[in-house]
């Protein structure tokens, strides 16, 4: 267990040193959302209606673009091989790195989402749900993303392929994430959607370490 | 000739049926391309797959023949058994 947290800490320290990574996620997220009012016009009613969809899609894209950082860096300088040799099972290695990834990506998106809600004229009743749904959904995005990243680690042009691989996995999170916020905005119950998001999270929590470890084992041999 | 009642010249009853068939009740523009694209994709996939098989089969035959020739000439020079 100690090695687990040590790995998380290590990744966080590394991310901090390369400061630009987390910042670029935040910047991308904000910029993407900002483009929509410019594109579709400033009319509040329209923006409000598409707000949750836009914010969630931007979150998905931001996560996708950041997946590169998950294993690639360590693979390239050989640290991944060393980490794989440690007593920590590869499944937990993957989980630790994914956790660190979420803390520097997903968590950021969760915290920024209310701000973007304001930009998109999101209905007042939906803000709390937005944060909750994001908090439940973004970990799943990191977990699913880890599978794609692990399968393509070491590939030169892996980036494009990763997007294609993870998009189908992201879609349920997108649908229910938007569903939750939409329900809250309409005054309906958001509980079923949040529960399903929770279920998807549990599911990804089991699937991701297993699949990612299998893929990493494959690519490291 | 009766007025107000258009008389259609009955030329070829058979051709009218075929005509009706191709018109597909007005939906021809959708139905025929749909079946056409389906046929094109299926036949295309079949042909490509078969072509790849035949081409590779030929390459394999050439390689195997070359190997046999190589072994034959090597066999006359040495007396070691084949792996």
């Amino acid at each position, binding site marked *: 267990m100690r090695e687990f947290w040590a790995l998380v800490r290590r990744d966080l320290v590394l991310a901090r040193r390369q400061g630009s990574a987390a910042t670029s996620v935040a910047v991308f997220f904000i910029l993407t959302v900002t483009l929509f009012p410019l594109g579709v016009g400033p009319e509040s009613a329209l923006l409000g209606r598409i707000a949750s969809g836009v914010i969630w899609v931007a979150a998905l894209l931001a996560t996708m673009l950041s997946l590169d950082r998950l294993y690639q860096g360590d693979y390239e300088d050989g640290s991944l091989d060393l980490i794989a040799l440690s007593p920590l099972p590869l499944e937990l290695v993957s989980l630790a790195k994914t956790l660190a990834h979420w803390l520097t990506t997903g968590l950021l998106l969760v915290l920024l989402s209310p701000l973007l809600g304001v930009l998109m004229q999101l209905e007042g009743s939906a803000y709390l749900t937005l944060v909750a749904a994001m908090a439940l959904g973004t970990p799943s995005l990191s977990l699913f993303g880890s*599978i794609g990243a692990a*399968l*393509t680690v070491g*590939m030169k*042009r*892996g980036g494009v*392929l990763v997007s*294609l*691989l993870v*998009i*189908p*996995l992201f*879609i*349920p999170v997108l*649908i*229910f994430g938007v*569903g939750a916020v939409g329900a809250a905005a309409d005054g309906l119950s958001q509980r079923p959607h949040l529960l399903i998001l929770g279920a*998807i999270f549990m*599911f990804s929590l089991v*699937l991701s370490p297993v*699949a990612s470890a*299998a*893929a990493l084992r*494959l*690519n490291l041999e | 000739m009766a007025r107000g009642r258009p008389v259609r010249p009955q030329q070829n009853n058979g051709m009218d049926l075929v005509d009706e*068939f191709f018109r*597909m*009740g*007005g*939906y021809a523009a*959708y*139905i025929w*391309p*749909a*079946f056409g*694209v*389906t046929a094109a*994709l*299926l036949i295309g*996939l*079949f042909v490509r*797959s*078969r072509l*790849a*098989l035949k081409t*590779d*089969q030929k*390459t*394999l035959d050439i*390689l*195997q023949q*070359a*190997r046999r020739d*190589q072994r034959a000439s090597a066999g006359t020079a040495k007396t070691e058994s084949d792996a």
Partner: protein
Amino acid sequence: MANMHRFANPARFTRISNALLPWLTGATVAFFGIGLYLGLFVSPPDYQQGDSVRIMYVHVPAATLASGVYAVMAIASAIALIWRHPLADIAAKSSAPIGAVFTLIALVTGALWGQPTWGTWWVWDARLTSVLIMLFLYLGYMGLWEAFDDDRRAAKAAAILALVGAVNLPIIKFSVEWWNTLHQPASIIRADGPTIHPDLLIPLALMWGGFLCFFAVVLIIRMQREIVARRIHALQTLYVASDGHAVA
């Protein structure tokens, strides 16, 4: 399971599949021939959609078999990972392009069916959306095979992806269904709904059979090709090693 390894020998597979091929090809032609005749000539037009309902005879089998082929791919991948059956990953790899073609057919015919029915070339109904996502799954799978230089690594990575996709498919389909009812309570292409007329069922079943046999035929051809390609690769490596200079 012991029986399965009788077919593990690629040469034996080639012999047996060659024996089956003419029958399967004949069955494909027969199913399609009779199915098309009944579907285009004999079966009645729909009272609402008119003759355009005939597109169902290619759209529905393609769409349902697109899922079916994915299931075959997933099962083959599981067998490849668990029992390391040598033909399993070849079967999975060979199935993918066929499944992808089926999804393409479903999407194009769906659009051609949708335009006269709803006046729009694309509609985000549950089935079409699921098929579109499935196309992405197929393309990703095929892309992964191509991205690796080493065939054995590619096989394992692709198998992992296929299984991940398979376990996620029910979730994806469920969320798309839910998403669709939320946004569009309007009618979906209910060719398989309660209104299906028995006169429509027989051509539909025949076309379904045609697509299925087509899958079997092309699967065999592609698997045979893959086996030959691997033997070529093995020979080329051998040739270089024993001779010291490369084969032309």
